């Protein structure tokens, strides 16, 4: 079973991930509060994206998935996990810097509470800076969810059904950021590109494992 043994060495990295995520998302908001904001709308594409509040379900379900995923990735092997962890932290750092240099904003639609999904969407809007939606580019939602998938991608000791579900779930969460109008398409694409590039580089040079395992030359 997937959850039979919880890899305890993932506990501290998970806490570091949470702290980094909060510092770079909420921490930067204290600094860029009075900065001018940019609007990265691509009118040709973004105006055709429909509002489908049902997708708020995937948007919200991503939260528990993010913090369970490190323990699943830790079940693959230490080399993969440490590289995954370092790549994620580097991405948070880059995103945090981007939020300070070019804070972007979005104009959210006005939604009437006709069903529970509308209500949930309005609830998320209210909790996520209602009058000053900010820190959109690149999307944390897409970035972290894509990492949750990348961590198990091609890892044959993780069951195939989970790897496929992770891909589908990551795609649904990415789509949800568009359909509930929390992000523009630029935020989605940049987040996937950033995560793929950084993960590729860290994996190629095995930096995460070299840095965190204490073994100088890794597995080579």
């Amino acid at each position, binding site marked *: 079973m997937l959850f039979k043994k919880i890899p305890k060495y993932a506990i501290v990295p998970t806490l570091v991930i949470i702290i980094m995520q909060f510092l770079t998302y909420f921490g930067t908001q204290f600094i860029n*509060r*009075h900065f*001018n*904001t940019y*609007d990265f709308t691509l009118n040709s594409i973004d105006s055709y994206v429909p509002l489908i509040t049902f997708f708020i379900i995937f948007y919200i379900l991503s939260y528990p998935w993010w913090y369970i995923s490190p323990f699943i990735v830790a079940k693959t092997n230490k080399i993969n996990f440490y590289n995954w962890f370092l790549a994620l932290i580097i991405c948070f750092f880059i995103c945090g810097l981007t939020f300070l240099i070019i804070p972007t*904003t*979005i*104009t*959210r*639609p*006005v939604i009437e509470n006709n069903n529970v999904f509308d209500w949930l969407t309005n609830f998320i809007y*209210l909790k996520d800076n*209602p*009058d*000053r*939606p*900010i820190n959109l580019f690149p999307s944390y939602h897409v970035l972290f969810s894509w990492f949750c998938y990348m961590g198990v991608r091609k890892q044959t000791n993780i069951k195939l059904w989970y790897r496929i579900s992770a891909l589908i779930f990551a795609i649904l969460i990415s789509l949800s950021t568009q359909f509930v109008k929390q992000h523009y398409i630029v935020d989605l694409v940049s987040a996937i590109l950033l995560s793929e590039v950084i993960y590729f580089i860290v994996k190629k040079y095995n930096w995460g494992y070299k840095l965190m395992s204490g073994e100088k030359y890794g597995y080579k």
Partner: protein
Amino acid sequence: MLNITQEDLANKLSVTRQTINAIENNKYNPTLELAMKMSKFLNVPVETLFILE
């Protein structure tokens, strides 16, 4: 007339210029906090700024 840009107003109220723009164009309902801040800053009652439709 107030000689103030959307950007100045946004900075004064700690919101984005796009939010001010959206309120002016009737595309966004501000929070009560922002509505009160606007009424205080512009020195007019909140009912003058917003009407219940």
